[in-house]
């Protein structure tokens, strides 16, 4: 079997904020159309890792990065159009952020920034993304009301719709289920299984069971170190290679 070229390849990635190093040399690859879960306790560098993938780490003062991150073989440090990169790597933040504009404009914002002006195309895109985020039926009659008036769970799905609106090839979700109820979480997980046919999904999650349900492979990060990366069955099985993985996934970890 020939392995397909990696969608994301990370080599010896180190990140420090000021003098505090938070990622200590990670190396891993993510295959195309894979659902790749990252688990680990708080402060283990999961969010920082995601922020390296779309280069929003640069907005943090004093953040320094070394090592190479490649998307489709291209080193991110040399990407000329960083905005195009961010459209290719969609990002869903942990807390829902409805931008203070209408629901329609929330979803049409990214395509508009990318220069899409055609009304019919925007309409189609907004509908498609809202459907994909399992929000369309609830908001189709009030697309022109404020996105910030939606409930928390709806705003989170709006955030996901916005991340889909620029047709990303990679979708990063950072603990997306923090603010939403279990039923909606299940619906979105269903959506993710559907989406993987068209994109690669990187899922950071605190709910280890969510990783277990969804991911092909799971990476366990602890204090900025890659403890273990393997197929999800192995990580959650009886004999992961590292004892800490076993303890964390069983909830013995404090």
């Amino acid at each position, binding site marked *: 079997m020939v392995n397909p070229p990696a969608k994301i390849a990370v080599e010896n990635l180190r990140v420090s904020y000021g003098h505090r190093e938070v990622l200590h040399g990670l190396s891993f690859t993510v295959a195309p159309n894979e659902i790749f879960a990252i688990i680990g306790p708080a402060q283990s560098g999961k969010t920082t890792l995601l922020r390296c993938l779309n280069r929003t780490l640069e907005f943090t003062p004093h953040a320094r990065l070394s090592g190479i991150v490649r998307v489709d073989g291209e080193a991110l440090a040399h990407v000329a159009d960083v905005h195009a990169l961010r459209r290719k790597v969609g990002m869903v933040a942990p807390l829902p952020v409805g931008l*203070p504009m209408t629901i329609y404009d929330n979803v049409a*914002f*990214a395509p508009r920034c990318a220069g899409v002006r055609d009304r019919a195309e925007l309409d189609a895109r907004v509908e498609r993304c809202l459907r994909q985020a399992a929000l369309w039926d609830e908001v189709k009659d009030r697309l022109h009301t404020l996105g910030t008036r939606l409930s928390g769970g709806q705003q989170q799905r709006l955030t996901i719709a916005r991340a889909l609106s620029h047709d990303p090839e990679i979708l990063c979700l950072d603990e997306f289920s923090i603010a939403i109820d279990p039923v909606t979480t299940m619906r979105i997980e269903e959506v993710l299984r559907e989406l993987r046919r068209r994109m690669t999904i990187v899922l950071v999650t605190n709910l280890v069971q969510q990783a277990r349900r969804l991911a092909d492979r799971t990476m366990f990060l602890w204090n900025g170190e890659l403890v273990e990366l393997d197929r999800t069955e192995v990580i959650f099985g009886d004999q992961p290679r590292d004892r800490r993985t076993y303890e964390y996934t069983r909830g013995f970890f404090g």
Partner: protein
Amino acid sequence: MNPPPFSLSPLGRRRQRQERLAQGVLAGMVLALVLPLLALVGYLLVKGAPLLSWSFLTTNPTQGMRAGGIWPALLGTIYLVVMALIVATPVGVLCAIYLNEYARETWLTRLIHLAVVNLAGVPSIVHALFGLGAFVLFAGLGRSILAASLTLAIMTLPVIITSTREALAAVPMAFREACWNVGASRWQTIRHVVLPNAVSGILTGVILQVSRTAGETAPIMFTGAVFYKKIAAGDLFAYSLRDQCMALSMHLYTVTTQVTNAPEALPYAIAVVLLVAVLAVNALAIALRVRLRTRKKW
């Protein structure tokens, strides 16, 4: 036997007394603030009432400023304030956008920030000397509305920068991050998300500077204001920018200290006009704020 439920224990009674005391003292402070203000305004109105009329606003002073109206001073103040804000607003707002949204935090930007804050605290007489040196003499503008309003602009600039920065900083960081995450550039983010949500705060900050600018005497005294100048009564375009002008604040000073035998009501009437004009502008600021707030979206 148990005490009846919900009756006050000794501790509860003490807490209740403290609560009443705190409320009383705080309300008293508010009264202490509001009453003198009302008394002041009332006193000015009563004293100035005999002279207040439409023609007082729209005619030239006569008999060595002992009679007639205040039209040149009123129009002069309007010219100075409007010109000063036309200059200071765009510069100040754009400056604040750069400092808040683009500039990285380095020793240089911290120094600039410190300079701006300190500049806001410089006494206006110092600004007046700067204006005299820079605009009147060095730039060769002479004593004129232009020089005076530029001096006022320099004086208001740091305050506008500070208030605009505060308005921008009040827009949650999460909005900006959400925009960056979907590939919006910094400018697109500012244009579509940050500015629409900061505009009410920015405008309020600018409009509040109107009252400050209108009240200043020192900066314009050296740079363009005169004791007396006769202009076409009721003509809105009676001044040109290179003219010297009268101003309400200066006029008030003149009739109280330099003119003998001026009617007692005159300074009070001038003060009322200045006060009402300032209050009207502030009311506009509040109305604008309320209007934009109802559109505020989070």
